[in-house]
């Protein structure tokens, strides 16, 4: 029989279910963790091998100096837009359905950023010198802008994750039966007084506003790493918004997958309802269309510009060496998601999850077909060599993915993955708030609330 906390079910009622993942851990958790950590160890071994011999152990060459690692960097940073951005926008819009999904989203952001940064470190020829970016910064370099905006984003989104976590940590402090000291420390004296609540809500709103421009700047700057060079098909003004849209797109997709897993594993069907998947699915559909619009604009302007250097890259994607990857990307980023999400009947949990998995594959391919084809077709007529990754790059890529999933699982074992206090607050206050809000939109009956000459009786 599974362990349950007596005291919490008295105080929280049915919501005690949200503490269950922290209270009791099934053996399948340990099995999965072990498998994931196996990948981590393998990636670590690969990295040590690379440190020992140099980047020669990768498949990188001249002129394809960037490959899997930089693709992963852009991909992971893209996924980080799941959380903070979506959660912040939904919070600011007072979208009531956000309450049970914001936490799951914010955790993705904070954790995945480490793997974005990790990908860059794995890509360095001299990782032990990485602090040179602080000692000898060159502010002309878009890579340094990246360092600044990503670290700011990590800081802001960590705060943004922590603030709404405080009342829940206090619940764990009061009703939990382990790590009391840890939770007491983290709850920084939360007692849930009126004043504390007011300050917390204010702080969350401020952070939500702050975090949006930071998040947008992060992926814009990532795109500028490519856009600020003169290389064919990188030097594009559309890259900023194109990357931001792609980032949010893959971010929503990973959020949907995370939510589906959480709901299934921790029996939270009552909190992460079908309607959540339907709403996020609609959002995903919008971004699939936006993604297509940007991709199409980028390609057609390149084609009409007819610069031979650009066309070389263009045709390598459409009909050449990278055509299979490119068209797989079009199918997985656009055709599959739109055909699933475009119909209410298939916008179910399974439907959105299938679409999301397809989008994650497609968006990784999108990043790859941005990085590699340009590099393999430089302006100087170079000998034809092609890039294919080695076991080290594949190992580190899989290891990063697995370690991310492991850390996410670990988080659910220490903190509630659905915000308890926000769900409760919603249950207590939302109805009244929404009724008032809707009333405030409604035109009142004629004659009421009509001061001023504009609304004077026309018969006079």
């Amino acid at each position, binding site marked *: 029989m599974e362990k349950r906390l007596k005291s919490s079910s008295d105080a929280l009622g049915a919501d005690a279910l949200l503490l269950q993942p922290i209270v009791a851990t099934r053996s399948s958790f340990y099995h999965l963790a072990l498998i994931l950590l196996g990948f981590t160890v393998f990636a670590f071994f690969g990295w040590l091998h690379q440190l020992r011999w140099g980047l020669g152990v990768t498949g990188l060459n001249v002129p394809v100096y960037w490959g899997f690692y930089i693709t992963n960097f852009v991909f992971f940073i893209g996924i980080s837009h799941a959380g903070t951005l979506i959660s912040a926008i939904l919070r600011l819009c007072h979208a009531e359905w956000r309450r049970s999904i914001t936490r799951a989203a914010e955790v993705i952001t904070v954790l995945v950023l480490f793997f974005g940064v990790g990908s860059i470190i794995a890509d360095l020829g001299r990782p032990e010198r990485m602090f*040179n970016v602080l000692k000898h*910064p060159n502010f002309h*370099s878009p890579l340094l802008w990246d360092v600044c905006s990503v670290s700011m984003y990590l800081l802001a989104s960590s705060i943004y994750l922590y603030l709404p976590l405080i009342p829940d940590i206090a619940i764990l402090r009061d009703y939990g039966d382990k790590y009391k000291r840890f939770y007491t420390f983290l709850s920084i004296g939360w007692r849930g007084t009126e004043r504390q609540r007011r300050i917390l809500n204010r702080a969350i709103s401020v952070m939500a506003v702050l975090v949006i421009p930071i998040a947008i700047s992060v992926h814009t700057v990532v795109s500028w790493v490519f856009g600020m060079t003169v290389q064919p098909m990188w030097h594009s003004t559309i890259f900023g918004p194109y990357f931001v849209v792609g980032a949010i797109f893959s971010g929503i997709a990973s959020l949907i997958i995370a939510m589906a897993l959480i709901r299934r594993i921790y029996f939270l069907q009552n909190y992460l309802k079908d309607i959540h998947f339907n709403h996020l699915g609609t959002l995903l559909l919008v971004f699939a269309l936006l993604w297509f619009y940007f991709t199409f604009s980028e390609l057609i302007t390149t084609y009409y510009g007819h610069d031979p250097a650009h066309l070389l890259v263009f045709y390598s994607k459409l009909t050449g060496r990278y055509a299979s990857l490119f068209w797989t990307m079009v199918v997985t980023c656009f055709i599959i998601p739109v055909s699933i999400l475009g119909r209410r009947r298939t916008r179910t949990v399974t439907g959105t999850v299938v679409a999301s998995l397809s989008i994650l594959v497609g968006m990784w391919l999108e990043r790859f077909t941005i990085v590699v084809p340009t590099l393999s077709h430089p302006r100087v*007529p170079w000998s034809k060599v092609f890039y294919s990754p080695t076991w080290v790059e594949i190992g580190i890529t899989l290891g990063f993915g697995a370690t991310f999933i492991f850390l996410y699982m670990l988080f659910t074992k220490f903190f509630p993955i659905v915000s308890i206090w926000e769900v409760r607050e919603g249950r207590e206050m939302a109805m009244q708030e929404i009724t008032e809000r809707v009333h405030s939109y409604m035109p009142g009956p004629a004659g009421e609330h009509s001061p001023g000459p504009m609304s004077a009786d026309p018969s006079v």
Partner: protein
Amino acid sequence: MPRWGMVIDLAKCTACQACVVACQTENNVSCVEPEQAAMGRIFAWITVLPEVKGIYPRVSMAMMPLPCQHCDSPPCIRVCPVSATGITPEGIVRQTFARCIGCRYCTNACPYTRRMFNWYKPEFPGELRQALNPDVTVRPKGVVEKCTFCHHRLMQARERAAADGRKLAEGDYVPACVEICPASAMYFGDLEDPESRVAEFARSPRAFRYLGELGTDPKVIYLAEGEWAGGKEA
């Protein structure tokens, strides 16, 4: 202050690759094993670039020695996050091996693909180790390196001139590739000095800069030979 530049007369160049070999020995450029070369990891600060034009049977081939172009506005310098690469007041684009973090952003930003990365620790088998030039640093693994216009030769020439109590004269300082060129197709000197041979060639109607339309302002100036004049900016 001088502004060092190179002129390569493509009408005289025989594509013998002596410049490539001279550079290799002068600058301790490492040898690459055949498997590595097959992966495209060929190391050469100067290379002779073949360009095939047309399709068989109407086909022709042009050859062009390509060192670092030592651009006046180099795209590589702007992008380096740690200022490991820069341009000297005399216009030579340099690389600081001890600071480079090996991110390879500069190699990707260079439109000429003239920057090399040390995938492994550079190897100098057998006698080659004894043939290393003591005036040039052997690079560690994981950093980017590039043509320096044989900067160490400039330092030596300066010292010699100072010891003789005279100013640096034309011909005191030439890079190894220019010195070796059997066809005398390469010239080197001060582009600022209107009397110098390179400045004179730079004014020639045959003169063009490779990919000059990108606005990189290279200080390597080519003198066109029929084929190369077409399509490239004059």
